[in-house]
C-alpha cells in the first residue's frame, strides 16, 4: 500500500481525480444510474448541475463513499474510495457539526479520530486557520456563529486532514445571498492556494458556472451525463466575472441544454 502510490505517481500522475465506470444505482424500482461513466480532469473545480431528483447528491455521496452503489467502479486518483483521503462539506452545516464540541475541536476532529498526537492536532489547526485568515474565536461552540461562519468552520474541518479531494454538497444553499458571496470567495481562495480538486453539487446554474473549471450537466432519470462544459475565465473570479461575455455565454449555453433536457 505504501509502495504503489509513489510508483503510479512517478510513472504518470493520474489524469483524473475521479473516474466512474459502469455505475449502477437503483432505489427500489426507480433506476437512478444505469451504466454511468464519468472522468473528472485532475486539479479542477468541477460542479454538477441537473434537474431535481436526477441524483446529484446521490452521485457525490456514492463517489465519496457515503452511499453504497449496486455495481460499477469508482476510483479517486486511481485508488479505491476507502484508500483516498476525502474532505466533505455538507449542505446543512447545523446538522453536520458536532454541537457538543467547540469550533476548534470540530475542526480538529478528523485528526483526532486518526490518532494524531494532541500537540500536532493543535499546530495543524492553527496553521490552517492562519493560512486562510480565519478570525473567529474558535473556543466558542458552533451554534454561536452565524450561518456563513459555521459553513466556513465546516470547510476548515474538511480541509484539516490534508484531503486529496474535496466534495461539497450544495455548500451555499443554506446561506443567504451576502453570506454566499463571502463563503464563495473563501472557497475560491482555498482552491487557488491548495489546488485541491473539488467536486461540488449546486442548486443554481450561475453558482454552478461561477467557480467551476468544468460544469457537468445531468439529465433527468435515468441519469446521463449530457455535457461537460468547460469555463476558463481567469481567476480570481469576482463580481465582474458575472457580467463578462464569457460567463454570460457559458451560462446561456448551460441553460439551453438544461431546457432541452426538461422538454424531453
Amino acid at each position, binding site marked *: 500500500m505504501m509502495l504503489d502510490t509513489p510508483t503510479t505517481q512517478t510513472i504518470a500522475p493520474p489524469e483524473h481525480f475521479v473516474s466512474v465506470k459502469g455505475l449502477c444505482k437503483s432505489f427500489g424500482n426507480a433506476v437512478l444510474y444505469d451504466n454511468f461513466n464519468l472522468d473528472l480532469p485532475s486539479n479542477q473545480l468541477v460542479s454538477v448541475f441537473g434537474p431535481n431528483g436526477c441524483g446529484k447528491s446521490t452521485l457525490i455521496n456514492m463517489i*465519496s*463513499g*457515503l452511499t453504497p452503489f449496486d455495481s460499477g467502479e469508482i476510483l479517486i486518483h486511481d485508488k479505491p474510495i476507502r484508500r483516498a483521503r*476525502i474532505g*466533505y462539506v*455538507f449542505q*446543512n452545516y447545523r*446538522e*453536520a*457539526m*458536532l*454541537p*457538543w464540541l467547540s469550533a476548534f475541536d470540530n475542526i480538529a*476532529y*478528523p485528526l483526532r*479520530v*486518526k490518532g494524531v498526537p494532541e500537540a500536532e492536532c493543535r499546530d495543524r489547526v492553527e496553521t490552517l486557520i492562519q493560512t486562510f485568515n480565519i478570525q473567529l474565536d474558535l473556543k466558542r*461552540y458552533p*451554534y454561536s456563529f452565524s450561518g456563513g461562519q459555521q459553513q466556513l468552520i465546516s470547510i476548515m*474541518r474538511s480541509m484539516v*486532514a490534508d484531503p486529496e479531494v474535496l466534495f461539497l454538497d450544495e455548500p451555499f444553499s443554506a446561506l443567504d445571498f451576502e453570506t454566499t458571496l463571502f463563503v464563495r470567495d473563501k472557497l475560491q481562495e482555498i482552491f487557488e492556494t491548495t489546488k485541491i480538486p473539488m467536486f461540488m453539487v449546486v442548486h443554481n446554474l450561475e453558482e454552478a458556472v461561477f467557480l467551476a473549471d468544468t460544469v457537468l450537466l445531468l439529465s433527468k432519470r435515468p441519469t446521463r451525463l449530457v455535457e461537460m462544459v468547460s469555463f476558463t475565465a481567469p481567476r480570481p473570479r469576482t463580481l465582474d466575472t458575472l457580467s463578462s461575455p464569457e460567463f454570460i455565454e457559458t451560462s446561456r449555453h448551460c441553460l439551453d441544454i438544461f431546457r432541452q433536457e426538461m422538454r424531453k
Partner: protein
Amino acid sequence: MTATLSKPQRRTAGRPFLQNLDRLLPLVGVGVMFGLWWLIAISGWVNPVLLPTPWATLGTLATAMTTGDMFTDFLASVVRTFSAFVLAAVVGVPLGVLLGSSEKLYRSVEFLIDFFRSTPASALIPMFILFFGVSDFSKVIIAAFSALLLIVFNSAYGVLNARQSRILAAKVMGANRWQVFKDVLVMESLPQTFIGLRSGISIALVIVIVAEMFIGTEQGLGKRIIDAQQVLDVQDMYASILITGLLGYALNVLFLLGEKRVIHWSGK
C-alpha cells in the same frame, strides 16, 4: 427558564418596576390556593379537625423541620430516592445506550420494556417484598426498578433517533464504529437521556413514598404521612405532604438546571 425571563425584559425594557412584577406571576396561583384553603378552613364548612389553617400547617412544618423529627424522615426519603436513582442510572444509561445502538436488539426487548413501563410499579411491591423482604434495600430496589425502565427506554430512544447526518459526517471524517458510537451516538442521546433521568428520579420518589407507607419503616416521609393520618394529627399530615411536594419540585428544578448546563446545545 432564561427564555421566559428574558422575554418580559425585552418587552418592558425601561419599566423595571413592571418587569419585577411579572416575575412574581408564579406566586399568584400559590396565593390563591392558600387564600382558598384559609377561607375554607375558617368558614366552618369542613370540620377543623380535618383541615387546619394554612398558617398552622406552615408553622408545624417549620417547627417539625427545625426542631422536631421531620428532618430525619425527610433525609431518610431523600437518601432512599437518590440511592434508587443512582442505582437505576448506573445500570440504565449504559444498558439503554447499548440496546439503542442496535435496532434489532432494541426491537426484541421493546415489548418487555413497554409492558413493565405500563405496569404501575406499586403493583409489583408485594412481589418485591417476597424476594427482598421488608428491608430498606427492598424499598430502594423497587424504586430503582421503576426508574430503571424509564431511563433505559429514554436512553435507547436517544441513540436510536440520533441524527443520521452527524453519524455520516463522523464516518466521512474517518471515524470507526467505536468512535462514531462514543463521539456521536452517546452525545446525541444525551438530551433524551436527561429526560429519562428526570422522569426517573420523579418516579423513584413516588415509589419510595408509597413503599414507606406500605412496607413499613422506622423513618421516611411516607411513613410519617400515613402515621399522622392514622392518629388524626392532621397538621403534621398536611405539613408532611407539603414537604414531600417541595422535595419533588426541587428535584425537578435541580435536574432541569443540570440539563441546561450539560446539554448546552439543545435546541440550537
